[in-house]
């Protein structure tokens, strides 16, 4: 009997370590929100390049409350009939903004000199249900948009209901299937152009890479892959294909986060090369340089800016 006991003891400890390495399917992490599925790729590949001068001044009155003043001068594009020519109209505007950040309530408002208001609200109704509202209100009739989202965060899933003006209803759902893989889907119904659509998405992430894929009945198929080479460098690539309009775009980009600056650049299969540099000149003072060269349309855009606070 004494001979049998030690082998049983060792067998039990071996079995326990094997169970710890196996996946605990009842305790999966919460997935990223459906609209942020490809957030790492967006940071590298869809940096906000601008044209002209941009000056942002933000003044904090409080931990939670701050005001911002923003001046933008430069040409803005106007949609033109022929796709080859771009019409640009020089404009200058000033935007006043107020922000309030609370753990439970976030309010952001931006008002331009021509009366356009851009409002965002995020309120935690309970600790699992979040209401988000987003609106662009203009003085011109029928040009305003508003969207309300109700997000519910479960233990390993997220569900969202969207309601928009002009009768837009959408719902998304995303679920963690393994600690690294999450799958999700969305449906939407738009009242004004009587359209409805359904889409599926998948995301696989590890410490070093993130890969996502999305398919929608509106015709888009998008796949992207981001490789994190180190803390400072990450490379991303993206492929988008629309099977209804037969458009294909592929792009490759990089994101270097250095001590005093951050450089993001990308090159496209449409012949567009762009880059954005954000340099920290001193505490609270950031200098921005943006360039976008469209060799196919021969449209070159350069911008510079300063951000204070």
């Amino acid at each position, binding site marked *: 009997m004494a001979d049998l006991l030690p082998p049983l003891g060792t067998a039990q400890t071996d079995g326990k370590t094997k169970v710890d390495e196996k996946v605990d399917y009842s305790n999966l992490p919460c997935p990223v929100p459906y609209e942020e599925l490809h957030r790492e790729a967006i940071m590298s590949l869809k940096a906000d390049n601008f044209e002209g001068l941009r000056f942002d001044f933000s003044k904090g*009155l409080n931990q939670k*409350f701050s005001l911002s003043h923003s001046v933008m001068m430069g040409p803005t594009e106007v949609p033109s009939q022929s796709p080859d020519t771009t019409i640009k109209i020089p404009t200058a505007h000033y935007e006043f903004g107020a922000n309030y950040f609370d753990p439970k309530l976030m309010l952001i*408002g931006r008002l331009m000199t021509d009366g356009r208001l851009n409002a965002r609200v995020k309120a935690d109704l309970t600790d699992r249900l979040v209401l988000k509202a987003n609106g662009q209100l203009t003085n011109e009739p029928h040009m305003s948009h508003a969207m309300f989202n109700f997000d519910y965060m479960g233990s390993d899933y997220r569900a969202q209901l969207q309601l928009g003006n002009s009768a837009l209803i959408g719902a998304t759902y995303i679920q963690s299937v393994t600690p690294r893989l999450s799958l999700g889907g969305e449906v939407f119904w738009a009242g004004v152009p009587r359209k409805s659509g359904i889409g599926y998405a998948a995301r696989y992430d590890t410490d070093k890479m993130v890969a996502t894929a999305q398919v929608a009945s509106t015709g888009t198929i998008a796949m992207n892959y981001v490789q994190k080479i180190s803390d400072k460098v990450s490379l991303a690539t993206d492929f988008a294909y629309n099977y209804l309009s037969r458009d294909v775009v592929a792009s490759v980009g990089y994101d270097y986060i250095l001590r005093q600056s951050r450089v993001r650049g990308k090159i496209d299969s449409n012949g567009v090369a762009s880059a954005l540099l954000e340099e920290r000149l001193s505490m609270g003072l950031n200098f921005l340089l943006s360039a976008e060269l469209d060799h196919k349309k021969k449209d070159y855009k350069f911008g510079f800016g300063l951000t204070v606070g």
Partner: protein
Amino acid sequence: MAAKPCLKIKGRGKGPKGSSSSTTSSSSSKNELVKEWTNWSLKKAKVATQYGFIPLIIIIGMKSDPKPHLFQLLSPV
């Protein structure tokens, strides 16, 4: 207020349409009324938000702790 829908004229206009279609016309007129009232209230809500959202944020911000002074709100520095 010119934007308010005229209820009385509508009721009289749809009355003498015929007894067989009276139930359908009353339910469709109810739908029309609901649509008119929701459009009117949405328009007023949009104007109220456009004028009042930024003042609302400023009021909530000025009441939060630690209370900032009015001078800090207005000065450019």
